[in-house]
């Protein structure tokens, strides 16, 4: 597996959190550029379709709006930071296996309900994509094509949005019921089945990332006062 897929889930989360944090803390635009390059590189390591393309396509509208609202230097500074956030999240979603995250959190003593909630949030994007694909296919069967001009695409988007949102809301109820039937109730002490290994080097790397963020924060806000 490429792009860090076998890393401990906490390490993946730490990387995905540290990159945007550093992008915002480090001086613009060089800090943002460095972090965006790393985040886009990680996203690209998952492949063009699941990684780089969604990251770029999601970040692009932000650049457009920033350009309309700000001057070029500000657009570049904020755009790089937002790109880092987007690319980090896309990489995380494409890399982190929700089941491994649950196992890691349970092994670390977290509540099973919270672990499941976090994992379900991270897996929401692919689930919604699959649901949207099914809705579009169903609508195609009834003659509504999502292709064509802008007007046709907007019509198709409107026809997609409502069933997508309503079915997602309905599924929340269904899943709550289903998880109850599977014993996932508040206050349980779940047995970890296969907790992912957490090597000392990864634990050290997570501390290093935290220290790097704190050091960058100190350099940015504390040190200048004493100079």
């Amino acid at each position: 597996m490429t792009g860090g897929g076998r890393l401990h889930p906490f390490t993946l989360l730490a990387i995905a959190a540290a990159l945007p944090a550093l992008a915002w803390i480090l001086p613009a635009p060089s800090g943002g550029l460095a972090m965006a390059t790393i985040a886009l590189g990680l996203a690209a390591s998952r492949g063009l379709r699941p990684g780089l393309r969604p990251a770029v396509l999601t970040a692009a509208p932000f650049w457009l709006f920033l350009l309309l609202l700000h001057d070029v230097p500000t657009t570049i500074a904020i755009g790089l930071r937002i790109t880092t956030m987007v690319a980090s999240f896309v990489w995380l979603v494409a890399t982190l296996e929700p089941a491994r995250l649950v196992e890691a959190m349970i092994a670390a003593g977290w509540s099973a309900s919270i672990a499941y909630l976090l994992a379900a949030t991270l897996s929401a994007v692919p689930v919604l994509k699959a649901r949207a694909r099914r809705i579009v296919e169903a609508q195609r069967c009834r003659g509504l094509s999502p292709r064509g001009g802008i007007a046709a695409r907007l019509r198709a988007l409107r026809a997609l949005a409502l069933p997508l949102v309503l079915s997602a809301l309905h599924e929340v109820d269904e899943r709550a019921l289903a998880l109850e039937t599977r014993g996932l109730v508040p206050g349980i002490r779940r047995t970890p089945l296969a907790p992912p290994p957490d090597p000392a080097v990864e634990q050290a790397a997570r501390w290093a990332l935290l220290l790097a963020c704190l050091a960058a924060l100190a350099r940015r806000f504390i040190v200048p006062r004493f100079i």
Partner: protein
Amino acid sequence: MRSLTLDHASFWYPATASPALRDVSLEVVQGEVVALVGALGAGASTLLLVAADLAPRVIGGRLTGTVARRDRSGIVLPTPWTQASGMAFTVWDEVAFGPANLGWPAHEIARQVDRALERLELVPLASRDPVTLSGGELQRVIIAAILAMDPGLVLFDEPAAELDAEGARTLWRLIRLLASEGKAVLLATSALDAIPDVADRVVWLEDGAVRAVGTPDLLADVAACDAGLGTSVATVWRASGLPPPYPLTVAHAVQRWR
């Protein structure tokens, strides 16, 4: 010994004026299989949700009367794809999801999961990704997942809906086996022809209320056949204009014919 007792239970779904269950009194004892039959909307699924302590606790609504459960219950919902955890990459892990939530030791989880997989003839699929399974296979996985939690009261809502004929036969045999092990089974099914071989008692629900309770012979009753709740043999007998009492099974029909 009683596993489940409903005493004058009525249940209203949220924001509804009329009850989905009306004044239902019912007992299910250990080692017994009780089948719930009725038209769509008769209240069988609702009764199972109440028996499983999911209604009103999880889905909301209002319950009157009393519901007493002696054993931990496990319910198989009619839509297996919504009951999957979504957190497992193999069938084995999917089946183990529930037992792990019960906090059992790992060796006990492994024992129960292996046993459930064997019972549902799922051992060859143990390492498959659940998302690659057919509807029938996933149905069997979910049944195995519930049985692996070792419930004393097992509630089935249309468990054969996704199964082929052979899968359904395996399930009916398994339900009898569960009863022989002392589990109480409450089964809502529209597979009326299977009931004479599976159930000890039949509860006929109509508009949320119990209309009749009896042995599976109830499914050859004239009123049940008139309501579309007769077995195939009884229904054909009736449609042929032959006089009641209608035979329940092919064996009964042959006996009558001779």
